[in-house]
C-alpha cells in the first residue's frame, strides 16, 4: 500500500465528519420522538425535552398497549402484511420464471404487455371504478390483490433468474425434472437474496401504505395501522378519541401521539437492519440491468 500524505488523511477525516453530520440529521427526529414519548407531561409543556427523556415514564406506552383498538389494528396489519407479502412473492415468482425461457412462444407478447403498464397508468378513478365493479370495496382483500404484482419487482427477480446458469436448468431437464420441479428445487432455493429483498419491499409497502385503504375502505375495523395513525394525528373523530383515551391534558396527548408513532414504526426498524445485506444487492441487480 502507498503511504498517504497528511493532507490526504485530513481529507479522509473531513469526509467522515460530513457523514456523521448527515447520519445525525437522519436519526435526530427519531431520537427526539422517542424522548418525547417517554417524557413526563410537565416537561413537554415547559419545553425541556430535547434528545433525552425527562421525567422518564412509560404512561404513554401503557395507554397505547392497553387500548384494544391499537392492538387489534396492529395485529390486523401484521396479518395483512404477511398475507400480501406471500401472495405478492408467489405472483412475482410465477411471472418472472416462465419469461426466462427463450423458447417460450408468446414471451414477447407478455413482455410488451408488461412494458406498456410501466409507461401508462389508467389513473385513480378508473382503478376505483374497477374495484367498485368487482365488489371489493370495504373488503380487506382490496388491500391485498390490486397491488399484488409489481412490474418493477418482477424485473428485479427476472434479472436475478437470468443470472442463474442455464446449464443447471438444462441438466435437470435432461434428468426428466418438470418445469414446476426446476422452479421449486433449483430457482427458489438459489434466489434467497432476491426473495428476501422483494419480501422486504412488499412488506414495507403494505405496512406503510394507507392511500388504498383511504380510498377503498370505509369501515374503520378494516383500517390498517397507518390510516388509523393518520386519523389520530389529524384529530379526525377527536371527540370519540378524547373520551376513549381520556386526553385530559394537552401534554399527555402529545407524548401519546409520539408513542403511537413509535408503536407503528418499531416493526420496520426491527427487521430492516437484518435484511440490509440482501436488499442492497437486490437494488443493484435492478439498477444495473434496467
Amino acid at each position, binding site marked *: 500500500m502507498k503511504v498517504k500524505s497528511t493532507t*490526504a488523511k485530513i*481529507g*479522509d477525516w473531513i*469526509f467522515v465528519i*460530513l*457523514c456523521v453530520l448527515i*447520519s445525525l440529521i*437522519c*436519526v*435526530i427526529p427519531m431520537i427526539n*420522538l422517542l424522548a*418525547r414519548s417517554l417524557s413526563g407531561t410537565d416537561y413537554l409543556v415547559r*419545553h425541556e425535552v430535547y434528545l433525552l427523556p425527562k421525567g422518564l415514564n412509560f404512561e404513554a406506552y401503557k395507554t397505547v398497549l392497553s387500548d384494544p383498538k391499537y392492538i387489534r389494528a396492529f395485529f390486523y396489519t401484521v396479518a395483512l402484511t404477511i398475507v400480501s407479502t406471500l401472495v405478492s412473492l408467489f*405472483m412475482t415468482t*410465477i411471472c418472472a*420464471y*416462465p419469461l426466462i425461457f427463450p*423458447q417460450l*412462444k408468446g414471451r414477447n407478447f407478455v413482455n410488451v*404487455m*408488461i412494458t406498456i*403498464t410501466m409507461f*401508462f*397508468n*389508467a*389513473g*385513480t*378513478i*378508473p382503478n*376505483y*371504478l*374497477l374495484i367498485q365493479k368487482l365488489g371489493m370495496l370495504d373488503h380487506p382483500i382490496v388491500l391485498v*390483490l390490486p397491488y399484488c*404484482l409489481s412490474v418493477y419487482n*418482477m424485473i428485479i427477480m427476472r434479472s436475478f433468474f437470468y443470472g442463474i446458469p442455464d446449464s443447471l436448468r438444462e441438466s435437470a431437464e435432461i434428468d426428466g425434472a418438470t*418445469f414446476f420441479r426446476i422452479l421449486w428445487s433449483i430457482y427458489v432455493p438459489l434466489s434467497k437474496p432476491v426473495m428476501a429483498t422483494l419480501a422486504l419491499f412488499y412488506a*414495507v409497502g403494505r*405496512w*406503510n*401504505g*394507507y*392511500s388504498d385503504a*383511504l380510498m377503498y375502505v370505509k369501515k374503520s375495523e378494516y383500517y390498517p395501522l*397507518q*390510516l388509523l*395513525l*393518520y386519523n389520530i*394525528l*389529524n384529530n379526525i373523530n377527536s371527540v370519540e378519541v378524547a373520551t376513549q383515551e381520556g386526553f385530559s391534558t394537552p401534554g399527555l396527548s*402529545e407524548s401519546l*401521539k409520539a408513542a*403511537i408513532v413509535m408503536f*407503528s414504526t418499531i416493526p420496520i*426498524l426491527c427487521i430492516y*437492519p437484518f435484511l440490509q445485506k440482501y436488499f*442492497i444487492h437486490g437494488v*443493484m441487480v435492478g*439498477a*444495473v440491468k*434496467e
Partner: protein
Amino acid sequence: MSGANKKHGPSRFEVYLSKYWQLYVLLFLPVLYLIVFKYIPMIYVQIAFKKYSIIQSVWEMPWAKNHGMQYFIQAFSNPDFRRALRNTVCLNLLDLVVGFPIPIIFALILNEIVFTKFKKVVQTITYMPHFLSWVIIYGLALQLFAPSTGLINMLITALGGETVPFLNDTTHWVWTYIFLGVWQSFGWNSIVYLAAIAGINSELYEAASVDGAGRFQKMWHITLPGIKPTIVILLIMAIGNIVGSGFDRPFALQNNLVMSWAEVLSTYVYRYGIKGLQFSLTTAVGLFQSVVGVIFLLTANTLSRKLGERGLW
C-alpha cells in the same frame, strides 16, 4: 388439418404444448392479473370523454359535449384544477432542482470513506428514512416542527430567534415539504449511484494518481463522467414525472392552512373524484397526467439522444 395430423402422430404444436404447458399454467395468474387490474381500467379511461352514469356500461354512456372534450375544457377552466396543476409542477421542479443532485453528492462523499465498517453503519442509518411511511414522517414532523414545543423551534427560541411556522405558513410549508422529501429519499437514491461508481474501472484512478491528480480532480474527471449515463437515465425519468405526483406524501403532509400551495393533482383527483363523485372530470385529469407524462418522457429521451447520451432505449 388436425385430422390429418392425428394419423401421423401429434402435431408440432401438440409436442410443444406437451413439453411447455407448465410454463403457461404458471403465467396464467400473472397475465390474468395484468388484464384485470391494469388493462380493464384502461377501458374505463374513455369515461373522460363520456358523461358518466352509474346504470350504464362504459360503452353505452353518451359522449360528452364539444366532441367529447367537455371535461378537459371544464378542468382547465376550473381554478382549483389550475392551482393543483401549478402546485404539482412547482413542487416537482423544486424536488428536481434540490433533491436530484443531493443523492449524487452523497454517493460521492460516501465513496471517499475509507473505513468499511463505518461506511456500512452510515448506509444503514441513511437508508432508514426510506422505510418510514409518510404518515409516520408527518408524525415526526409534527413533533419536530411544532410551533412552540418542537425541537427546532425550541432551538430557535433558545438562540433568541422567533418561532417559525414550518407547517402552517405556505412558503415555509413548501420548503418543509421539499426538505422532508430529500430527507426520506437521498440515502436510498444514492444506492444506484454507488453501484455505478463501483462499476468504474479502478485502473483509471490509479493512472490519475500516477499523473498527480488530487481527490477532487478524480471526482470531477473520472467518477462523475463514469456515472453520467446513470444520472441521465434518472433525470429522464424524473422529467417524465413532472406532472405526475405520488399521493402519500402530499396528502399526509398537507393541512387546511396551506392548501393553496399543497393541493396537487393526485389529491385534487381524490377530493373531486372519490369524495366529490365527479368521475368524468377526474378521469380526464388522470388521462391528462398520463399523456403529458409520456410526452415529457419521450421528449427528454429524444433530447438526450440528440446530445449524444444513451437514453432509456
